[in-house]
């Protein structure tokens, strides 16, 4: 009770930490209604929520043991097992009495403590030439290891962290930055092969053979189509180029005939021997 009162007046930060400074002050066991609860009041009524808070405050039996050791200013390396066990059992019993859902790990630790205690009580056999292992060694190792992890977690928590201590600086790109898209390379051979495959497949599935026309004619058909509009007529001769020679004129003429046949272009002649004009086949309004 006296310890509880004392700590309530203690204005120092309750969670001073550090491996180097073992225990200068009692650590609060839990906070209830904002008040630090330092120790289970022995003879008084224990508020059930206090123990619930205890369960939430400790990360497990090792954490609780470490707390007890620090609170009693025990030396972790000599670990007075009887005293520690007694204290530990008091908390566990209290929590069990209140039927709080106690993790199995707490009971397992109780069993470990009891076992160590009993082994220490057994008289050592004189014929043991080899030094017997200290039954506390493993527990001490675990406690030290856990204390280290606890410290590491605290150190990690104060490490500068994005979104809390530091924030990413980001800068917009100026408006004229556009993502670059690299188009795949295609070889001419791929196109030729693709054409062969498509044609062979078509021939295999259909009975009629697809006529092959001179490419130059088809190219000229495209060219003529892109020269013409559907609104204006163009004199036919403008489609021919003298520089191309006879062959060029023939190709051009064949292309025009083909386009007329497919009704892609319209040819008109006002009268005999008049100039022929062409335009794109226009869509008749119905």
């Amino acid at each position, binding site marked *: 009770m006296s310890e509880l009162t004392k700590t309530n007046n203690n204005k120092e930060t309750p969670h001073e930490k550090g491996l180097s400074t073992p225990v200068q002050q009692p650590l609060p066991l839990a906070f209830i209604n904002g008040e630090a609860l330092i120790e289970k009041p022995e003879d008084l009524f224990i508020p059930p929520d206090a123990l619930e808070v205890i369960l939430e405050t400790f990360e497990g039996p090792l954490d609780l043991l470490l707390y007890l050791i620090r609170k009693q200013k025990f030396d972790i390396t000599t670990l007075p097992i009887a005293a520690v066990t007694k204290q530990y059992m008091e908390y566990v019993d209290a929590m069990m009495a209140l039927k709080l859902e106690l993790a199995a790990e707490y009971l397992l630790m109780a069993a470990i403590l009891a076992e160590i205690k009993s082994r220490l009580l057994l008289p050592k056999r004189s014929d043991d030439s080899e030094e017997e292992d200290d039954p506390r060694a493993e527990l001490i190792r675990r406690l030290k290891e856990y204390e280290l992890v606890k410290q590491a977690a605290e150190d990690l928590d104060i490490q500068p962290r994005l979104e809390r201590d530091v*924030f*990413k*600086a*980001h*800068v*917009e*790109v*100026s408006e*004229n*930055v*556009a*993502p*670059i*898209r*690299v*188009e*795949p*390379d*295609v*070889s*001419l*051979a*791929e*196109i*030729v*092969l*693709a*054409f*062969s*495959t*498509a*044609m062979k*497949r*078509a021939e295999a*599935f259909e009975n009629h053979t*697809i006529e*092959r*026309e001179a*490419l*130059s004619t*088809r*190219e000229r*058909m*495209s060219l003529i*189509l*892109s020269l*013409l509009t559907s609104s204006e007529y163009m004199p036919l001769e403008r489609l021919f180029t003298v520089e191309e020679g006879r062959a060029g004129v023939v190709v051009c003429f064949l292309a025009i005939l083909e386009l007329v046949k*497919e*009704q*892609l272009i319209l040819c008109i002649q006002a009268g005999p021997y008049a100039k022929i004009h062409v335009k*794109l*086949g226009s*869509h008749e309004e119905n």
Partner: protein
Amino acid sequence: MKKINTAQLKQLVEAAIFVADTPVTKQQLKETVLNEFTVADRTLSKVINELKLDYQPRGIQLVEVASGYRFQSLDALSPWLSKLWQENAPKYSRAMLETLALIAYRQPITRGEIEQVRGVAVSSNIIKTLTERDWIKVVGHKEVPGRPALYATTKGFLDYFSMASLSDLPNAHAFENMAESIASDSPLKVLNEAPSE
């Protein structure tokens, strides 16, 4: 309200504009990062102007846009900065190559005609991709019901494959024979004869 010296104010304003998710106005700065300090409007404007000048010789600039102040990269650096977002388009599918081949060899051709030869529908995506790459274009419409577009290859297509005209396109028949004669198991050798792009 606390006082803040100009140097600290400048650091804070600078950092705030940098880390904010959107451009920030002076008003927003005063309501957030500066809300516990007494800062005259004049002082804030002065600090922002100083920052603008500080960054003038640098790769990024402090600019005022409609919704406030923000840092943005120097216009002149855009051609290189764009490379940060470079993406490689996936390789063309067989459907894409066949469509392109049919347009090349059989132009002008409608989508329906391509579908007839290929026996399957031509997806709009293929036409779109080839159009965007400036390899094909619509050269007219066929005067049949629906007036379907007629596709042809472009000058860009010829340029890509280093051809002066479509008559440079290998004769598909001859090509096939050649391919077969080289080696039945290694049709890839033919690739050597394709113009290296």
